[in-house]
């Protein structure tokens, strides 16, 4: 499908609903959202003010859905949204917005700004104003199955290695399992320990699980780029596999945007509720903790802080589980000032980490300074998180700033200290 301005404008008209109309009608240009956005706080550039990133959508709203705007358009006083404008906004909508949603928490008139950025991306995608990196990740996910172009034989190989390392069976395409386990390519490639950790925990809990050979990928680049039709295609694979295998639960991996895609956007993309329950891995772990299954043989001693991934915590609603779980395994957990739903993004969510232009990478490194300050003011050498994408972004930033902070995955940390 070729992208055109016409399609983009149509998409923007389509996404505008009462909340968006209400939000634009309420904005008083106070600029407080800028203080909540790491791309603004770390650069001081007013262009990165969250509400400003929505200008193309606001313009379409004004010109199409308000009496005054229509009159202005009629007499030629309104500036239309054109390709040049959308092109100029591309870096604001993708490079400098990770859909982290911190801005939505501070707006005094209550505007859910990130809700609107997500919708604006529909118009950007339909008009072809998207970063190459996210576009190719989306294409690979639709055509091959995952954003990194990973095919099943490679995944099967990783699973086999995890079986060897743990001595536990990882069932594939097994009907009737308690959980269908989804993975993100980044975990499969960079953090296969996660898979071993899961196998151990499931074994310990006496729960059955399976991996599907045609729906192992949980991430959804279609959502990040803003193409709902592609996002639907991607999520449908999981729905079909889960329903065919008749599993009760689908287990979202740590990856935040994957959780958003399957748990919150999924049913809305396919237009009906699921016949299974979507559970984030931390929700499952916390349930096991409460049941007393998650007993530790020993604890992690080094002082550490937690990095709460936006899409799981602030945007996903898994609010309390992470802290409960870290307290289960760590002796010296230090809560940071802006924690839980107030946490600062790693700087690379929402598809941003797939953009590899020099400008985007430099901006990401700059935005990371807020996280760097959090680590330094806590005075710790260890940070724990639970999102493969955050981990990659943070590790890149550690390299950039030559920091020797250790970064650990929460699920793996728990599995490592799990009682045998």
């Amino acid at each position, binding site marked *: 499908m070729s992208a055109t301005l016409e399609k983009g404008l149509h998409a923007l008209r389509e996404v505008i609903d009462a909340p968006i109309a209400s939000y634009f009608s*309420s904005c008083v240009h106070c*600029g*407080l959202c800028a203080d909540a956005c790491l791309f603004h706080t770390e650069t001081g550039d007013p*262009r990165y003010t969250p509400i400003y990133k929505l200008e193309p959508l606001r313009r379409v709203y004004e010109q199409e859905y308000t009496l005054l705007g229509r009159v202005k358009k009629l007499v030629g006083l309104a500036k239309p949204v054109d390709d040049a404008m959308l092109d100029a906004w591309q870096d604001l909508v993708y490079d400098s917005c990770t859909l982290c949603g911190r801005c939505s928490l501070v707006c005094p008139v209550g505007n859910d700004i990130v809700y609107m950025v997500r919708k604006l991306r529909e118009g950007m995608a339909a008009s072809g104003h998207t970063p190459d990196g996210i576009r190719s990740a989306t294409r690979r996910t639709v055509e091959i199955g995952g954003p990194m172009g990973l095919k099943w034989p490679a995944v099967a190989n990783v699973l086999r290695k995890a079986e060897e390392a743990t001595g536990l069976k990882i069932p594939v395409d097994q009907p009737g399992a308690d959980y269908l386990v989804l993975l993100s390519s980044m975990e499969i490639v960079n953090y296969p320990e996660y898979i071993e950790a899961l196998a151990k925990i499931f074994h310990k809990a006496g729960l059955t699980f399976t991996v599907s050979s045609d729906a192992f990928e949980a991430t959804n680049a279609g959502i990040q780029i803003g193409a709902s039709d592609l996002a639907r295609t991607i999520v449908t694979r999981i729905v079909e596999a889960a329903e065919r295998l008749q599993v009760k639960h689908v287990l979202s991996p740590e990856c935040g945007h994957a959780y958003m895609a399957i748990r919150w956007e999924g049913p809305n993309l396919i237009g009906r509720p699921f016949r299974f329950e979507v559970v984030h891995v931390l929700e499952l772990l916390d349930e096991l903790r409460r049941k007393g299954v998650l007993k530790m043989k020993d604890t992690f001693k080094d002082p550490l802080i937690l990095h709460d991934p936006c899409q799981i915590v602030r945007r996903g609603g898994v609010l309390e589980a992470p802290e409960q779980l870290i307290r289960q395994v760590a002796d010296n957990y230090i809560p940071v000032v802006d924690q839980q739903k*107030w946490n600062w993004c790693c700087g690379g969510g929402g598809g941003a980490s797939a953009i590899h232009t020099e400008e985007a990478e430099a901006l990401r490194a700059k935005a990371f300074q807020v996280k760097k300050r959090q680590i330094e003011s806590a005075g710790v050498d260890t940070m724990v998180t639970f999102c493969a994408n955050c981990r990659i972004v943070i590790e890149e930033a550690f390299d950039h700033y030559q920091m020797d902070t250790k970064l650990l995955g929460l699920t793996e940390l728990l599995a490592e200290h799990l009682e045998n």
Partner: protein
Amino acid sequence: MDALQLLTWARGPGLDLALGIFVLGVVWRLIEVYSLGRKRDLAPARQHPGASGLRTVLRRSLPPPGMLKASPVSYVGGFVFHIGLALVVFLFAPHILLIKSLTGLSWPGLPSQFIDMVAVLTMMAMLVILADRINKPVKRFLSTFGDWFAWVVTFLPVLTGWMAVQHLLLPYTLMLALHILSAELLLAVLPFTKLFHAITLFGSRWYSGRINAHKGVPV
């Protein structure tokens, strides 16, 4: 037209016109905004204490953690000017008389010396936030004609009202006429400018609270 004729027009046809535009404008804009509706969220909801539309309507009246420090002028100035404006508009005895003549509703007012002081504070706060809009890079960058215009039409009724009461600059009759006319301008433009936030902010906060409460996040 002399001052008295102007005052008579402002109190009679002028007021009817302004109120007419205000009421029809508000109704029209509300329909324009809220008739767009929204799709039902098909994902199963998560419950969390404190997460609801209503809670967000209330919660957003106070600065979130860390924000007061980040932008003290916006919050302190904003509070003083909004509260001051509400006190002056609704608790000044002559205003209550006007509202009574229009709606039949009435309530006790505040002493006029107190209102006087509040009006001065309100104007000072408005001048401070205007200076902030000019000085602060983000605010200056975001500002459009609509922002300056909204400031002027909000400031004028306070200024002229205070000057009329104080018998400053112009004869009382003329200043009162200007005060009423400026208030009528404010009423007439409210539905079509950012001043409409006075009404839609409740809807916006509620939507935001509700959409996020569905995911179990108190926002």
